[in-house]
């Protein structure tokens, strides 16, 4: 199992994502200007501030050469996980529905939040038992999810935990095919008991199980 973590100029949580992926498999960094995905089994678009996000979060990153390959990879059914800025990039790229608006508070917010796993059948959540709650940190200034159309919700903020005013407490959504998943909270910051909870590990573990099941099939 080999993860590829895309590195844009301004990515901040790229090494964190790499460390998290390495707990369940191999992980390599993919440079934004290269189209070669190095034969990875899954792609992670990490958090941070790609290209500074001075225009609109993720609006420039979607035009990076690597994103053409990521879109192709996704069309072919490859697993793509977008975390925070990565979620914003996937929405901007049209790989996920909806958009992420500035928080209701108009401020950056860091908070350890509880998430309800709404859909535990996806390739990203299959290691979670149905109805499980995950404790994972969220940290962002534009995390208010909005979609005019019905969407496939994977994670919701637990009651009273919504840090940004997102529609229907949505924290993470998938595409219709189920192989692209974006979430605002940071599962890569919940993989080590020394630095917090380990609930985020189940996302990466789910991806490993999904890829290996597919390879076996």
């Amino acid at each position, binding site marked *: 199992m080999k993860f590829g973590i895309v590195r844009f*100029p*301004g*990515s*901040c*949580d790229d*090494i*964190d994502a790499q*460390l998290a992926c390495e707990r369940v498999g191999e992980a390599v960094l993919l440079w934004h200007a290269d189209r070669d995905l190095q034969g990875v089994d899954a792609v992670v678009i990490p958090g*941070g*501030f790609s*290209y*500074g*996000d*001075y225009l609109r979060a993720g609006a420039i990153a979607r035009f990076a050469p690597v994103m053409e390959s990521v879109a192709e990879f996704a069309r072919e059914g490859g697993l793509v996980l977008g975390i925070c800025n990565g979620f914003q990039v996937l929405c901007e790229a049209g790989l996920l529905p909806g958009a992420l608006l500035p928080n209701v508070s108009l*401020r*950056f*917010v*860091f*908070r350890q939040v509880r998430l309800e796993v709404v859909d535990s059948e996806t390739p990203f959540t299959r290691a979670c038992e149905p109805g499980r709650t995950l404790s994972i*940190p969220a*940290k962002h*200034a534009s995390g208010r999810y909005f979609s005019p159309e019905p969407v496939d919700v994977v994670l919701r903020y637990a009651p009273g935990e919504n840090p940004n005013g997102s529609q229907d407490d949505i924290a993470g959504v998938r595409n219709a095919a189920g192989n692209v998943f974006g979430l605002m909270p*940071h599962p*890569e*910051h919940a993989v*080590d008991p*020394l*630095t*917090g909870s380990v609930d985020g590990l189940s996302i990466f573990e789910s991806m490993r199980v999904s890829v290996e099941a597919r390879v076996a099939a």
Partner: protein
Amino acid sequence: MSRVGGGRVVSGAATDSRHAALGLSDLEYDRIVELLGREPGDTELAMLSLMWSEHCAYKHSRRLLRRLPTEGPAVLMGPGENAGVVDVGGGLGLAFKVESHNHPSAVEPFQGAATGVGGILRDVFAVGARPIAVLDSLRFGEVARSARSRYLLERAVAGIGHYGNSIGVPTIGGEVYFEHAYEQNCLVNAMCLGLAPQARLIRAAAAGPGNVLVLLGALTGRDGIGGASVLASAEFGEGDADKRPTVQIGDPFAEKKLLECSLELLDSELLVSLQDLGAAGLTSSASEMAAKGAVGLDIDCDRVPLREPGMEPFEIMVSESQERMLCVVVPERVPDVVAVCERWEIRATPIGEVTDSGRMRIRAGGELVADLPVGILVDDCPVYDLAPVAPEGGPTSIYPAPEPVSAAVDAAGSAGDTLLALLASANLASRLPVFEQYDPVVQSRTVRRPDEADAAVLALPTGEAIAVSIDGNGRRVACDPRTGAAEVVYECAANLACVGGEPLGLTNCLNFGNPEKGHVAWQLSEAVDGIAAACEALSVPVIGGNVSLYNEAPAGPIYPTPVIGMVGRLPDPARAGRLAFGSEGDAIAIVGGFHPSPVGSELAKLRGEPLAAPLPPLDAIAALGAHRAVREAVRAGTLTSAHDIAEGGIAVALAECCVAGNVGARVELPEGLDPFAEAFGRAFVVSGPPEALAGIGAEPGGPRSGHAAVPVTVIGRVGGPALELEGVLGVPVAALAEARAGGLAAAL
């Protein structure tokens, strides 16, 4: 016009007021003329005025700073480099430094605070270290009464978050306090820590005549011109809005690329030396590199990439445009440097070369516009002795009494109401509304986040960890400068002890008023003596720092505010201490001799009592013993919680432990102990299994080890829904939490 050496030095008409407008005194100007043997040209005078400013030359503090101990077994790089570095084992060096950005933040809080963070980050990666954490120390006027202070607080916090969050460096702690004395002069001090393999550490000395001087990063513009002299080295007065153009504008995305690029250049061993561009821009970074390497530098202004056309040579030389670095490269390696920079989309421009002339020679338009010996820029600025005069009427006669805040805190009120009023006050309320705006976890090292423990804890790749704390208490230093300043050092060390950390070194930022005034000079001198004595007693060297003077408005000086950032080491991050009470039934004890006084306390402030002296005396041996006992008990895993007793006394310390653990406590205070009286850095509230607590005060190493036994007084048990101080007060934990949550949130 005058001719010097082989080139023509362009000189403007030497008017009488030219140097005064740039902040130089007549005597200083005369000295320049005497040293040069001629009138300086316009560009030369601009360069000299910056280099001879208080901010760059430390002319009123340099002699004083020599009193601070700077050596210790762990010190790898001490004061004088971009940042000091200590050895943290495993071949790793930890660089750290605190610096002020007070004056820019008072004029433009968002950009002032943001570029304060940006500047201290560059100081750290200039020595080859990857920035791994930021902490901040902030002071504003009374937010409950002052709309301007609320604005400064909100925008400064947003600016710090904007820069730190965007660049991917966690903000792991800090402190913020509110006093009327900061109404006109807010303080924004930022501290950064960085980690490096010791082999990658690099000094700022230029070397090798013929080597190329390469400017990295952003374009040079007209922002920040005169920031170090006009803004940072003078008192504030009327019309400060005019000074807004002297504030720089930050671009964290540019700095993120510059950081990654600089570290890759160092890892590839492509650089001879590296220096950041901070105060006084190209002038100060180039002349300091030349001075440290005992070489000269030729710079061609025409080669400096500019943001706007028509900039004068002096503007190019003193611009404080952000996100720029200067490096020295062997000629054959220049193409390799350019290639790495291109990959990171960083501009790299050769702008000059190293010479053996010992002179800074600046050309523009084919003409020599400055030709100065390096020494005159860096070493020849006059250094002044302070003329301290203890204020008549005592140390506190300079400051008016604080305005009383709340009727709930008068002596007739109940102790429970007093505790709630203290917890709800801006100085003691929960810092969550501030900390929530910062990312504390990026880089995956943070073992203790803000509010979880008295010091932040970061795991190292070696399996060990470091602890860090930043502290200051201006009101107490105003009351009693020597003891107050020493207390700050002890409190930092006590914070480290609470997580199991042993101090390795500290950095300080001395924020004071106008040192040319006798009473400010006295505060400064006393405070430095207090810090020096505390450093000696605790065996903690000062590895670098910063001085910010002239924090003074027509209404008077700020409270004297030395800010200390201290770093320590602990062997096992899994055992890092916490402040929250945990298990019902745990015993609660005071560790250390605790003999507090109401003088200078938060309660005295809320009641509007005038500042007073003296603070309770510091017994160094007793305090050290208490620190050691707590540190060893935390390391042994004996304790459930450890918290130092500071603002608000034992009652507030207990309330904080209860709120953090969401559990009550039943306590009987020792006879005669004032629940709200204060003494900092000397004693702790700890909790743990009763049988475990019994052992922690014993003489370490046995009765003949030479260490005195430490008093450990069991005062109660953890449990129940309320904090009960028998015969004093009883308040539900939910009420404590509610009071504490609201105090600062209301101001933001």
